[in-house]
């Protein structure tokens, strides 16, 4: 379990990360969302033990990352947003290097390397020189390197940046698979559709502050307290607009492309009552549906577009 307790990082007067708190469990894939400069990378670097927090701490399986960084490091895999690879060696030699650096016994190294190569789909490239790999393959190799010691927490900072669409899809699949393997995966990104597919939890950070975090469904449900209903009437909408504005749950009505977009504060029961009332009053309704929120809507509703 990863328990982040009031993590804070200050650079002089600038507060880069402000008392962040969240908890993640095995199997969680946590999308860490925020605009550029929001504090995502600083948080990840603190969790990776590369930066010392100004205040607060985090524990991974009960081990304090601030007090015992050396004990935490073997338990985590880290893939930075900008990374390099040692050149002049083959993919297998590169992984052997890290296997040795993580003190994996010699006898076990070959099997482990084969496994991570297979997982990252790099088996066919095992004898290729690192510098000859495409950007996407290098990204996967970096991920393979982060997996060689079987960490329980994976910190992936913008893992899909700079990748072509195919490579992005492959990385997404891989992350999903890692979550299914029971690892805690923390993925940062500012490209939301990228995260929507495979994260079960998200945290939105802005100006160093974690504005919201939790299960994706729960956050969407919270925000949907203020729903938008799309109603497509047959005929002139004026009378319908007047009728809707008399409803207590309706906070506003907009007209776009022949449809009415109704800002509605009620739940599903109230929606059903409204539809029944409209039909009873003789309005002819061709379509009545609630607009669903996606991660982009959530993000736009929560953030103000500020950086720390």
């Amino acid at each position, binding site marked *: 379990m990863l328990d982040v307790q009031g993590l804070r990082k200050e650079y002089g007067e600038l507060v880069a990360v402000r008392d962040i708190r969240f908890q993640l469990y095995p199997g969680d894939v946590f999308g860490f969302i925020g605009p550029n400069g929001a504090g995502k990378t600083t948080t990840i670097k603190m969790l990776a033990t590369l930066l010392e927090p100004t205040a607060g701490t985090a524990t991974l399986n009960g081990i304090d990352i601030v007090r015992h*960084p050396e004990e935490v490091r073997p338990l985590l895999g880290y893939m930075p947003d900008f990374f390099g690879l040692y050149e002049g060696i083959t993919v297998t030699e590169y992984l052997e290097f890290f296997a040795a650096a993580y003190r994996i016994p010699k006898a076990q190294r070959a099997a482990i390397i084969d496994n991570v190569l297979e997982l990252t789909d790099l088996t066919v490239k095992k004898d290729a020189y690192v510098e000859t790999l495409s950007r996407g393959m290098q990204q996967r190799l970096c991920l393979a390197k982060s997996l060689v010691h079987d960490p329980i927490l994976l910190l992936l900072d913008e893992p899909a940046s700079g990748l072509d669409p195919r490579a992005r899809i492959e990385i997404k699949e891989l992350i999903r698979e890692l979550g299914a393997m029971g690892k805690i995966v923390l993925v940062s990104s500012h490209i939301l559709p990228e995260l929507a597919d495979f994260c079960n939890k998200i945290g939105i950070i802005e100006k160093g502050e974690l504005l919201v975090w939790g299960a994706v469904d729960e956050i969407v449900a919270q925000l949907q307290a203020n729903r938008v209903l799309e109603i497509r009437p047959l005929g002139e909408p004026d009378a319908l607009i007047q009728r809707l504005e008399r409803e207590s749950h309706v906070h506003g009505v907009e007209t776009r492309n022949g449809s009415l977009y109704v800002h509605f504060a009620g739940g599903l029961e109230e929606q059903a009552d409204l539809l029944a009332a409209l039909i009873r009053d003789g309005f002819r309704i061709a379509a009545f549906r609630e607009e669903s929120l996606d991660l982009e809507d959530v993000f736009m509703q929560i953030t103000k577009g500020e950086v720390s």
Partner: protein
Amino acid sequence: MRTLRENPLLRYHLLGATRHRWRRQPWLYGAAVLGIGLVYLLVLQLTVFNEAGMITTLGLALFVMCIAAPLMAYNLFSLEYEKQTWESLALTRLTAREIFWGKYGAALARVALTTLLFAPFLLTTHRATTYVIVAAFIVLFSWGALLVSVGLWLSFKLKRTLTTAATLYAGQVFVLMLFPFLYALFSGGEMGPGQSAIEWVQNYRDGFLAWVISLLNGSLIIYANPFYASAQLEYMAAVPAWWWNAEGWDAYANALRYMLWGFAQSAMYLGLAALFAGFAYRGVKISWRK
């Protein structure tokens, strides 16, 4: 020993990167090896047939070391920063000691190899005594060790490969050329302290005192210059043909011996090397939270 024997970083720096360089430009490296090999044999032939003294052989070896040693260390840490690999390395279970020795050990191994390359020159130096030959080897190696230590530290501190290389070469120009120039400027054109400065030295105690005095009167910047040291090592071997006072010369050679000439400079180089290496090690330990 485990720090060296099972150190993947040492292995990478010694073998991995080197093989890469060969593989990428085999013709260039082939031509370079052939060219350098021919020059090596030619110079060795000249050394033997022209009865070259220690000024020539050790001087040549030192000149090559001055050029080559910075290249053995200038990028050891800076490339980690420039290529963004240091974070991955810092997170492994390698200790600060292993990381340090992985890099420093590779650089020292190359310095040792360069020293060995000059073994035929030093061993065939004309009229060189065992003392002089051993001192020459140690001066050469320890000067190289000092250069790679400073290079390692600068590479860690500056985090920029080119800046590190430029600083190392500029620093050598300053120490090896400008210091003697400044000394000459303030001592009426004398290029060194000369025979009279130490001819009173008659035992090891005097020799030690002579070093202390040199520290106080500024002549240490000349004595510690490895090229000056190599010149005096030649004079220790035999009276030069052009010298007019053989008796006085013996006294001078003895004084140098009592000052442990060559060995004392090497001790200074190695001491400074340990200091800078210590800075680099401490840097890794603190900055990388190891």
